[in-house]
């Protein structure tokens, strides 16, 4: 190898992309091979587009990103398309494959499609988990095992139900049946801008929070004391961070628990050093020059923290469904028995749907939903999906909370059993239990 050859440089035209290679020169405009770029006169013009030497810049070929293997060419072969690579999307794929080894399946997912147990995200920090240990199977491995064409890092951007066509950032896909498992996304109030506030609704978000908190104990403001906010508050406190929780209501989990029960939760928080700021609404979050955050409340307070975490609930992005004219009411409206949307051959499951106007964002019903849809897609008999409210467990480890049934705002909670460790309550209608609640458990600290 000649050492001289390695010193030839290349320059690229910023306008048209033509490359001037010193080794080759540009004989057409009188530049002999071996003419150095520096030796070319300033009035020399790009032989293709005519811009001058000043519009050339040094050319260093970038290493091509290895996106080829996951960007399989879009084929016209139709089959089932699944939008969403979370728990619901994979459940649908598993259910289809269990019934049919051959039906072509394409999955479109905005993330890598890696599989993990989503409920773990709200207890993972204190268990010293990492993104790697949370993943149970990489998306590409699951795709290979289940014979799925996986379009990862790809977004579904348009849907035409009449054409059986879904448009993505990797091209247009035709489907015979479409399964929407797009999930829900954090609904962030305007005062909590996404550029300043974290939230945890998927592994990518958790990974970001995990990375940000890696440097040691920090002050964290959690906005929203619902299920996720309460679980994260305890998890972060256990991991050694100083946690303050703000909520519009007087108590945490106000939508769910009677006051007597939430008092127990507050008591447990106090022993963990978690501060609760009731009846607060955030009016502004700002960033300081040192990268800290200041949370302003309607009372004129200014909380100085290292991280703001927004846990103000989830909402289904209506864009895809509405664009296709699908019925939408707080989620993609599905038939409660068949899980078909308002369009033929389009089904939906998981966090993105609403049944009788109510979203149901729990893991438990997903497997049954997936099985119902798989049977319908493949034309197999099935008894149909029967929706029942799942048992609700709040993973606050020092004070576990379990709710069964459907509590009603009109009915009073009655104490069934109570001691220092545990509180059991129930709601009755005509002498029958309609909802029950267990807060804490006996000897929990001893067992911990």
């Amino acid at each position, binding site marked *: 190898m000649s050492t001289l050859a390695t010193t030839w440089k290349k320059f690229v035209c*910023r*306008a*048209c992309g033509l490359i001037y290679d010193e080794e080759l020169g540009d004989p057409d405009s009188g530049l002999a091979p071996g003419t150095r770029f520096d030796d070319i006169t300033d009035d020399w013009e*790009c032989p*293709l*587009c*005519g*811009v*001058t030497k000043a*519009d050339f810049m040094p050319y260093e070929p970038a290493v091509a990103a290895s996106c080829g293997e996951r960007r399989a060419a879009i084929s*016209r072969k139709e089959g089932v398309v699944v939008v969403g690579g979370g728990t619901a999307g994979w459940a649908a794929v598993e259910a289809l494959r269990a019934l049919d080894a051959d039906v072509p399946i394409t999955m479109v997912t*905005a993330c890598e499609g890696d599989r993990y147990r989503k409920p773990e995200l709200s207890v993972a920090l204190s268990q010293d988990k990492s993104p790697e240990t949370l993943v149970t199977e990489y998306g590409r491995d699951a795709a290979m095992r289940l014979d799925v064409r996986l379009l990862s*890092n*790809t*977004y579904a*951007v*348009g849907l*035409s139900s*009449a*054409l059986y*066509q879904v*448009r993505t*950032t*990797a*091209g*247009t896909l035709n489907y015979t049946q479409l399964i929407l498992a797009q999930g829900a*996304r954090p609904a962030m109030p305007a005062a909590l801008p*996404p*550029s*300043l*506030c*974290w939230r945890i609704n998927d592994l*990518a*978000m958790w990974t*970001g929070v995990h990375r*940000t908190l890696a440097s040691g104990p920090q002050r964290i403001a959690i906005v929203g004391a619902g299920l996720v906010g309460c679980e994260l508050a305890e998890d972060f406190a256990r991991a050694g961070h100083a946690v303050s929780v703000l909520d519009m209501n007087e108590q945490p989990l106000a939508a769910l628990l009677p006051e007597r029960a939430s008092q127990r939760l507050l008591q447990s928080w106090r022993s963990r050093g978690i501060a609760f700021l009731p009846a607060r609404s955030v009016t502004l979050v700002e960033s300081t020059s040192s990268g800290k955050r200041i949370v302003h409340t309607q009372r004129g307070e200014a909380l100085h923290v290292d991280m703001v975490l927004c846990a103000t609930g989830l909402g289904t992005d209506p*864009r895809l469904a509405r*664009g296709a004219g699908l019925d939408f009411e707080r989620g993609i409206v599905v038939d409660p028995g068949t899980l078909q949307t308002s369009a033929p051959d389009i089904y939906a499951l998981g966090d993105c749907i609403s049944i009788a106007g109510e979203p149901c964002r729990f893991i438990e019903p997903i497997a049954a939903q997936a099985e119902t849809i798989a049977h319908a897609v493949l034309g197999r008999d099935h008894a149909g999906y029967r929706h029942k409210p799942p048992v609700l467990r709040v993973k606050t480890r020092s004070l576990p909370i379990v709710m069964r049934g459907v509590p009603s705002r009109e009915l009073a909670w009655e104490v069934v059993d109570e001691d220092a460790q545990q509180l059991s309550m129930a709601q009755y209608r005509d002498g029958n239990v309609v909802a029950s609640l267990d807060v804490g458990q006996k000897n929990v600290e001893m067992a911990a």
Partner: protein
Amino acid sequence: MESALISGDACVDSWSDEEVMARVGDIARGPLAVAATRIDAQGHYPLDIMAALGEAGALGVHLDSHGARFGLSIDAMQEASRACGATGFLMWAHDVCGLYMEQSRNPLLGGERLDAHAHGRSFGGTALSNPMKALAGIEPMMLRAAPTAGGYLINGTLPWVSHIKRGQYCGAIAAVHRNDGSVSHEVMFMLDCDERVELRHCPVFSGMEGTSTWGIRLTDYFVGEASMIADPARPFIARIKPAFILLQVGMALGVAQGGIDSSLEVEPMLGHVNRFLHDRPGELGAELEDAAHQAKQLAQTPYDGSTDYLLEVLDLRARGAELALRSAQASLLHQGARGYLMSAAPQRRIRESHFVAIVTPAIKHLRWEMARLCAEEFPA
């Protein structure tokens, strides 16, 4: 009474929706259909046809002063593009130039000057291909501006700008450089192609040769208040960007429609074998109708500044390009040997569809930007 007449501005021009479409249809099926081959093969720049389209209202109805009828504007462009994609592109360039003038709120770009433009009595295009990509972070800005007394001095080269010639004009953007070479902001201005501007011949393109496309070189070209469209340019571009992209859909759908026409043309003779092909005219026709429906919806609110709206516009523009490509390709397969003649419409239309797919925003840029808009934003 008087105010009623003024607010019903469209009546003043007799540019009713029906009349505009009727007159554009006559032009497209008449002189434009005849000129299409000459425009393509000989690079004929059809200013006579553009003037007729302007008189018919096809180049002005999208303006606020003529009722902001974007749906009609797209329909008109689609009708013309069906006969000649290059002319559709000229209409788009002309339309957005008018949009810049009106939206600039600069009285010196409005009034009689805008009126002449909107009626096709004067002509001008747009030099925003590079700036649009530059502002999206895809490539560097080619024109540089240096502040001077009363305005800016502009230097630099743009390799290809369409619908211009000596005496015409185009909207352009330059990055304003501070003394240390860093960029402070961008300015958008009307570039008058007078003697101060060096117009340079472009290499031969595979198609669209009749669009009067030139390289532009500027040396200390002065821009003052009179020519200013927006300073700073970014908020202005953010506001007009959906409309800028949406209007192109007329060209995309028109080329697609032309391809379907060509496939249908041979159906009586070749239908018995063509039924073995995919992308049959009926199938593509249904897709075209679906896309046209989406266009009509989006055309109602061209200045909607939401991310969701922009996403829908980008989606529509991308599907328009894909449809144009498939439709043109299908027309060649449907026509067989007759479509392989150099003079056949599918030959021209295939190159037009390639243009629809690669002109800014190209399919790849559209997907790139849709992915960017869909991605979750996280704290730094």
